[in-house]
């Protein structure tokens, strides 16, 4: 059995969750077994059943007020219990902030080998080998998982959401928790709404020190909004508080893997590239023809951002109104 953690936020499934469900369904298919999705918290079962569309054969729902709040301890207990009940041999989750908090705990509970940042399906021709990114995207490692139970935390934006068109049954189960699973008190959760989160964004427009100051970000935000992109920045930009830390991408910031990354006034230092080089298409806009970013880019414009951006914005608006 393949068990996948289907994270929900207020009952809704994010794209990264659907990617994980499809990935797990793929694995189930090639192992001739079924795919069970675990949903935690008070959710709507008709909505949960929709996970069948993305490949779940069954949805196991654990409903409890206490699970409306994320705690690594209780979530790990719940997922590990379902995995044991279902005799899971593989547990799949998305390597999001929540996924990162629980994969290690589940591994310790079940004595399972765990790999995070997985970017391939397993190769079982000789062992159980999965590929993961290492050195912040500068290389890949092929890792053999030797334990009977295996945990795969897959990188968001790496696998397609696939339509399997199954109908999933929903089963409500109960799990025994330990008092310690609820030791933390969640005081406040604030999510930016109406904005695309950086890790999930398919398109990203990013600015560096070459943008000269926070007052010049208007055009970046406008271009991002026209394209439906998220905004990002280089480390010095967030260090100087031109932009929030949550936008900082690179080796010490967020690692992203969008379809399109537009870097404006960013030199392309190795630490910056580490976090963005897995992007499918990279555009570098820089006035310095020697900027290292051009070596990592697919498209480049050598020019002053303040001259170039208005033209691009204009063309983007035209395209969007033509295709609207």
């Amino acid at each position, binding site marked *: 059995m393949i068990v996948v953690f289907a994270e929900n936020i207020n009952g809704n499934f994010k794209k990264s969750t659907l990617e994980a469900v499809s990935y797990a369904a793929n694995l189930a298919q090639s192992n001739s077994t079924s795919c069970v999705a675990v949903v935690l918290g008070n959710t709507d079962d008709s909505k949960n059943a929709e996970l069948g569309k993305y490949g779940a054969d069954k949805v196991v729902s654990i409903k409890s007020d206490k699970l409306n709040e994320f705690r690594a301890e209780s979530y790990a207990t719940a997922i590990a219990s379902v995995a044991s009940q279902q005799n899971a041999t593989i547990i799949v989750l998305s390597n999001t902030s929540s996924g990162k908090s629980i994969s*290690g705990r589940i591994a310790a509970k079940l004595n399972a080998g765990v790999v*995070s940042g997985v970017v391939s399906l397993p190769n079982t021709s000789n062992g159980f080998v999965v590929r993961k990114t290492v050195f912040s*995207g500068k290389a890949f490692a092929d890792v053999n998982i030797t334990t009977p139970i295996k945990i795969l935390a897959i990188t968001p934006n790496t696998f397609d959401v696939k339509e399997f068109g199954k109908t999933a049954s929903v089963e409500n189960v109960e799990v025994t928790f330990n008092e310690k699973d609820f030791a933390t*008190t*969640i005081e406040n959760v604030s999510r930016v709404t109406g904005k695309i989160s950086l890790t999930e964004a398919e398109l990203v427009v990013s600015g560096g020190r070459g943008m000269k100051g926070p007052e010049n970000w208007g055009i970046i935000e406008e271009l991002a909004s026209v394209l439906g992109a998220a905004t990002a920045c280089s480390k010095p930009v967030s260090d100087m508080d031109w932009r929030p830390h949550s936008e900082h991408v690179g080796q010490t910031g967020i690692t992203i893997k969008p379809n399109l990354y537009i870097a404006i006034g960013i030199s392309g230092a190795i630490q910056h590239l580490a976090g963005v080089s897995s992007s499918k298409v990279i555009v570098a806009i820089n006035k310095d023809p020697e900027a290292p970013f051009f070596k990592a880019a697919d*498209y480049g*414009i050598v020019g002053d951002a303040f001259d170039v951006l208005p033209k691009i914005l204009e*063309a983007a608006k035209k395209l969007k109104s033509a295709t609207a």
Partner: protein
Amino acid sequence: MKILVCISNVPDTTAKVSFNDNNTKFNSAGVQFIINPYDEVALTKALEIAEQNAGSTVTVINVGLSDAEPSIRKALAIGANDAVRINAEPIDAFFVAEQIAKYAKDNGFDLIFTGRESIDYNGGLVGNIVAEMLEMPSINLITSIQIDSNNATMERDIDGGKEKLSCALPLVVSAQQELAEPRIPNMRGIMAARTKPLTVIEPSTVNASTPTINFELPKPKAGVKLIPAEQAEQLIDLLHNEARVI
């Protein structure tokens, strides 16, 4: 308060990444090793907490061979009171966590820090495995922490936002970049570090559950297609019709 900080010895962020022994080993020739940047942030925060709570100690622990000692000495120079090295090659996260958990269990700590992830293996797993083994709560990606007698109040990054939470000690936390501004060791610290205790402990035997069998470098890009600045608007057309990403 007893604080433990887990530190990893990693290649410098500017290091050229290459492999040898038929792509099975990282090629460390000419590569400078440093304290994992997030662990350095964690260490700084640990020292700040220790300074605010009289009688506290900060111990750093590394699972690694003797070549990690310059990084361990640097941690002592920055201000840790003592250091422990578990004398073993850090083969995978589970192995490393098992060694740390065992030491922590025997010695009892109120607060255990790790970095968000190591910048070489990018696992981000050690802290959570340690926490589970010690039956402690684990809070990932913290951007602030305040200790008030036996209670910690923290902020942490979640997908697309922030969360504020609190928890009684003992506790395992992982440091996000902005948790603290790393300290640079001063001359006094460097001198003092030479005589601070660094205990070497032999590992308990654990098999690797996820051995790495081989490394590979990403394929190089085909080369950049330059668009003249005067016709910058062409970019949108190329992204739409050629690259098909918008």
